[in-house]
């Protein structure tokens, strides 16, 4: 890594959203690689004590800055002297304006502050694999970095993904306009300890009973530690400026396998398997009703998001492996076991 790394171990690195789910893992990975100056930008330093301890034991110089990326002053403080920015802070609200404000406006502020200095060597932007449109990909087709980005997020009724896609647009704009040295990573479904949730790609319990969707589909999972490592590499590797990387692990389980294992290892519950054509028709009807009723029921189920989340397609991580030299260190079986053990503990706590 050392010979094709764009910075020295003593160069200053900024992580936004550093005490978040992925951010805290990116922090640990960087410490593990031996980087000695890390600045963590957080909304609130509550819950950062464990990170501080990791920093202390490594002898690295770790600085926590509390602030809000909506403040230009906070952004200027955050980027002062940094060589690499890992931008992991994101808007997680439910409304379009919230997600736009906390993903796009914040990113614009951060970039404009960063390009005022002369040290910046890489701006690592974290996006999502959900920004792609699957409409043109046939069943069984391949989703990779060359696929089209969706433009119909309002129709998809997805504020978070909308924010992420618009955030990518801002990064690309500054890349072209101001030669921002950016890299974009688009992780799949990040899972692991710390996030006690089964992804909607497996199914939904919105209607009181768990509807098992996807069935034979491969779920584009990435274990949180593997994902963090890919993000770290994308921020450091020479010669990948302007590239986009999808981050997905190897040996992806099918939706059916995942649910079967979950029921075996965590808890048993009743689920109804729903074939894709049936779910697609349901989504189409819901969408029609939503239009007819002028949004009395919002179009949360619609054909576009049905295709994105539940159409059977394959995913490629070839580019990340080839250009970043990334390999998922935690194999899928081990990652699933770790996750299920964590989920079991969480379930036991509820009792």
């Amino acid at each position: 890594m050392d010979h094709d790394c764009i910075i020295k171990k003593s160069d200053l690195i900024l992580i936004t959203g550093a005490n978040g789910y992925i951010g805290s893992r990116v922090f640990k990975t960087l410490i593990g690689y031996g980087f000695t100056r890390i600045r963590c930008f957080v909304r609130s330093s509550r819950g950062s004590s464990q990170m501080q301890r990791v920093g202390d034991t490594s002898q690295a110089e770790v600085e926590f800055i509390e602030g809000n990326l909506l403040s230009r002053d906070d952004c200027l403080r955050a980027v002062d002297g940094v060589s690499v920015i890992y931008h992991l802070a994101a808007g997680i609200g439910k409304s379009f304006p919230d997600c736009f404000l906390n993903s796009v406006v914040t990113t614009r502020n951060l970039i404009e502050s960063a390009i005022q200095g002369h040290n910046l060597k890489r701006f690592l932007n974290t996006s999502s694999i959900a920004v792609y449109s699957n409409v043109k990909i046939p069943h069984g087709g391949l989703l990779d970095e060359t696929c089209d980005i969706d433009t119909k997020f309002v129709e998809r009724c997805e504020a978070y993904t909308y924010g992420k896609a618009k955030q990518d647009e801002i990064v690309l704009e500054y890349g072209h306009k101001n030669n921002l040295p950016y890299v974009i990573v688009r992780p799949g479904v990040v899972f692991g300890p710390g996030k006690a949730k089964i992804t909607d790609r497996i199914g939904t319990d919105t209607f009181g009973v768990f509807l098992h969707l996807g069935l034979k589909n491969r779920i584009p999972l990435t274990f949180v530690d593997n994902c963090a490592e890919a993000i770290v590499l994308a921020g450091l590797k020479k010669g990948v400026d302007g590239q986009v990387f999808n981050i997905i692990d190897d040996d992806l389980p099918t939706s059916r396998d995942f649910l079967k294992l979950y029921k075996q290892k965590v808890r048993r519950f009743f689920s109804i398997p729903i074939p894709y054509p049936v779910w697609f028709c349901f989504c189409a009807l819901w969408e029609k009703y939503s239009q007819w009723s002028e949004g009395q029921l919002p179009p949360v189920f619609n054909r576009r998001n049905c295709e994105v989340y539940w159409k059977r397609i394959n995913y490629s991580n070839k580019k990340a492996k080839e250009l970043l030299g990334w390999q998922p260190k935690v194999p899928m079986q081990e990652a699933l076991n770790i996750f299920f053990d964590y989920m079991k503990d969480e379930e036991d706590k509820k009792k």
Partner: protein
Amino acid sequence: MIQVGIIGCGKMADCHAFQIQRITGAEIVAVCDKEPLMARDIAERFRIRDYFSSAEDMLSSAKLDIVHITTPPPSHYTLAKLCIEAGSNVYLEKPFTLNTSEAVRLINLATERNLKIIAGHNAQFTPAMVRMRELVRDGYLGGNPIHMECHYCYDFGDENYAKVLLGDKDHWVRKLPGSLLQNIISHGISKIAEFLVGDNPEVIALCFTSTFLKNIGENDIIDEVRVIIKDENSTTAYFTFSSQIKPVPHQLRLYGRKNSLIVDDDHQILIREDNREYKSYARYFIPPFIYASQNIGNFAKNFKGFLKKEFYTANDFALKTLIESFYLSVSRKEPLPISYREILLTSRIMDAIFQQMGQSINDYRK
């Protein structure tokens, strides 16, 4: 066609834009936010012709019949004044202003210019509140209420808001004279103000920070308030705001001379409490049956509204009802759906609560 503009392109602007676009005869022609990206974003999503980053530019670009102001409260007075001076009627989101003095000046200015201004107290127009008002008008209570109880509570479990507010020491909500309360309680206070007589009710407020907030080291936010109000006619009211009660209630209870009423805004239930005596064991069997019938009636009304695509969520229904009534008031010179007296009385009661809240905080710090 009523030409509409919106200033402030955050979450509330989306709610307004969605409802305005459902109103026949109204068109949003311009939006404005000091952050140009936010203005451009809402303009693109709602296909609005013009967007601006300056309110002055927007107001001078076109004659806007009505401007909705959905910015944080500290800017309400200045922006509303600007709009009125530019000749526009104003829909001002709650809380109306930071204090009564600002509210009086805005109302006087609008009246002088022959324009109208309304407070965004849309919770007054949920389907159950509308039905309640009709019953009161028809004399069900036997006159004005003798006493009222209003629970208007808040859930810190709502991560969207609480996480942002608790995690940001500089959040604008903290800088309001009434902090968190100012941003939330006007809905509940206005429900009481509607039925009070006179302009200067007595207000006794007990304000404190919940143990939940204290335990997480948050001592600056008051999230528990109990208020007693008495007007010139000796009508009294209890107002409760809590962040800890579960399920989170939004209820109004009106006690009359003849009968009483309960409005449950969370579930859109209106219950009539008839003053009828039943003999012996009948009092244990007949009233529960009557309450059950009323609940079934509430279900039927809600479901019928849903089938007729008139229901939406109660707050959406209420927002559209208030906006539509305000537009009618402006275009047909009809009375305002919320009187200036009610807006000012709400503001005065809130001022009195915040004044006593300030004393509570000082006592706590001593």
